[in-house]
Every structure is written in C-alpha cells, then in structure tokens.
C-alpha cells in the first residue's frame, strides 16, 4: 500500500494554488534547502501524518461539490510533490478525472518521476528560482540540471499552457537583470505562462 507523509491539508483556497476552489496537500520531503522556504517543516521527512491515497481521498472529498462547480481540485505541494508520484497516481484513480490535479514543484527530481506523474496531472506550478546555475545552487544547495531536463520534457510532451513558471526576485541572491535573463531563457524554451514575483522578507 502506498503511503506518504503529509504535513497539512489546507481547504478552500480560492485561486491561490490554481483555478477555482482548491485544497492544498503538502508532502514532507524536499531535495532543496531554499534559504527562504515557506514550509521548512517539510524538510523533516519523518514529520507530518501518514496518509494513503484512500485516507486522503476520504478527507478531501468533503469539498467535491466546490471542486466540480469551480473547476478546482487538489494541488499537491510540499516539500516536493513529485517525489510522491505513485501516491498521486493512485489518488487520481480514486478521484476520477473531474477534479483538477496540480503540483507546485521545483522539477528538481528524477525525470522518471515527472514522466510517471504527467499523465494524471492537469497542470504544473513551477518555482524555477533562477535559471543561472550558480545562483540556483547558492540559493537551494542543489544544481538545476534536472530542472532544465524536466522542463524541456514537459514542454515537448503536452500543452505548454498547462505549465506556469514562477520566476522570483530573490533578495540578496538575484538581481532584476538575472530575472530578466531567466525569463528570456524560459521564453526561448517555449514557456508561455509566467508569474514573476517578489520574495518579500518580513
């Protein structure tokens, strides 16, 4: 039986994590260590609560009516949701095709994880950090070779409009010029939907 650790199930998110009314499900476990991570609790792989796809489905189906009415559904975040592709696939089998399933991902995972999950997903919200490998590594602790590879694959295996790439201005790590360069590079790759935004340190 597939199991995963989930540290939060957040209901009634209205256009925050995708179209319509969505429930955000956040997995423990992440390959990155971003300086300004919003959910550092996800770094603890043994934290959260253990779910099976069945127990998660039983919990979130309470909002099915809202999902269907607004063309919303479940957005998987974390942590890195694409480390849990079997779980997501089994969840899709339970919820059917009417719910929208999205992932908020860094894409910094093995390509087979992306390729396994892609058939059951409706969309991707990709936090690209910065396309410059040095900036990326300084900010996340990892290199971004897999990010390029996975993004290329997604852009060539499906509608590019199912992907929103978030390009952050990261204080002390990149400049406006770096962000512009990232955007330019991403456009050249075929990305069509962008969300350029500012990390604000409080």
């Amino acid at each position, binding site marked *: 039986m597939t199991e995963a650790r989930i*540290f939060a199930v957040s209901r009634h998110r209205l256009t925050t994590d995708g179209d319509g009314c969505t429930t955000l499900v956040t997995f423990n476990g992440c*390959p990155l260590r971003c300086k300004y991570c919003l959910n550092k609790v996800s770094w603890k792989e043994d934290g959260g609560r253990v779910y099976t796809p069945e127990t998660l489905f039983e919990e979130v189906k309470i909002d099915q*009516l809202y999902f269907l009415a607004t063309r919303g559904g479940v957005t998987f975040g974390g942590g890195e949701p694409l480390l849990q592709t079997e779980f997501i696939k089994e969840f899709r089998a339970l919820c059917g095709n009417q719910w929208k399933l999205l992932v908020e991902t860094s894409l910094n995972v093995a390509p087979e994880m992306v390729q396994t999950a892609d058939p059951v997903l409706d969309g991707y919200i990709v936090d690209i950090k910065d396309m410059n490998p040095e900036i990326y590594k300084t900010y996340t602790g990892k290199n971004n070779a897999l990010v390029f590879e996975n993004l290329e694959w997604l852009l060539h295996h499906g509608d590019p409009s199912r992907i929103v790439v978030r390009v952050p201005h990261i204080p002390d790590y990149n400049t406006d010029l770096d962000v512009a360069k990232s955007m330019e590079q991403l456009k050249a790759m075929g990305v069509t939907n962008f969300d350029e935004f500012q*990390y604000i340190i409080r």
Partner: protein
Amino acid sequence: MERGKQTCKILKEIRQQIALENDIELVTSECTHKGDCAGTCPKCEAEVRYLERELEKRQRLGKVAVFAGLSLGTIVAATGCGPFQPTAGMPMDPPDSTVVCQDDTIPERPLAGDVMIEIPDTTAVPTSEE
C-alpha cells in the same frame, strides 16, 4: 479573520449558484457570527451536504447535475471580495504578494504553496549536500 469571512461569502455564493443551476431550493440566512471565521462552519457544511443529497436525488431520477463552471472571478466581483482577483492563465497570487516569513508573522492571506501553519524550528534539519 477577515479573510475567513471573505472565503465564507464566496463559498456561500458558489452554493447558491449550484442550487440555482440545478433547480434546488436553498434558503440561506445572513451569518451573524461575530468571532473568528475559518471560512466554513457546521452551518455552511450542512448546506453543502444538503446540496449533495438533493443532487443525488435528482441523479436517481435521471437528471444530470449541472456544473457550468463557475468563474471565481465573477463571484469575487459579485461578493465584493477584492483580494482574490485571478490573473490570466492559471490564476496565482498577484505578482507582489508572495511573502517569505522569516519571523513569527503569519500572513493573513494564504500565499501560493503556503499552508499558513505555525512552522516549528527546523534549524536541526541537516542541509542536503550534492
């Protein structure tokens, strides 16, 4: 908890639209609750369950449930809840709203991917290495 009240208002409007589209009588009353609002409550949830039962009854009679795809943008405009304006494409937060919390402040409005929970100290978590 102003955000909770706005969520409540929008969800109520969604329920009313579902009832209208499916010819279900749904009598709602103005919420008079004065305290914290999480966006939903037992009364709101009871309305959802009522709608589900009514839709099931109609389906047993061979009627197909109608979900015309309510536009949250339209509902938001109708309810006057400004902060949830979607952007083009796949709606996200407005560009300047993604916040990184480095102190104890929990933002009032959820950010993309942020579950808005108290985050325990994770300084003991080792940093991954290449």
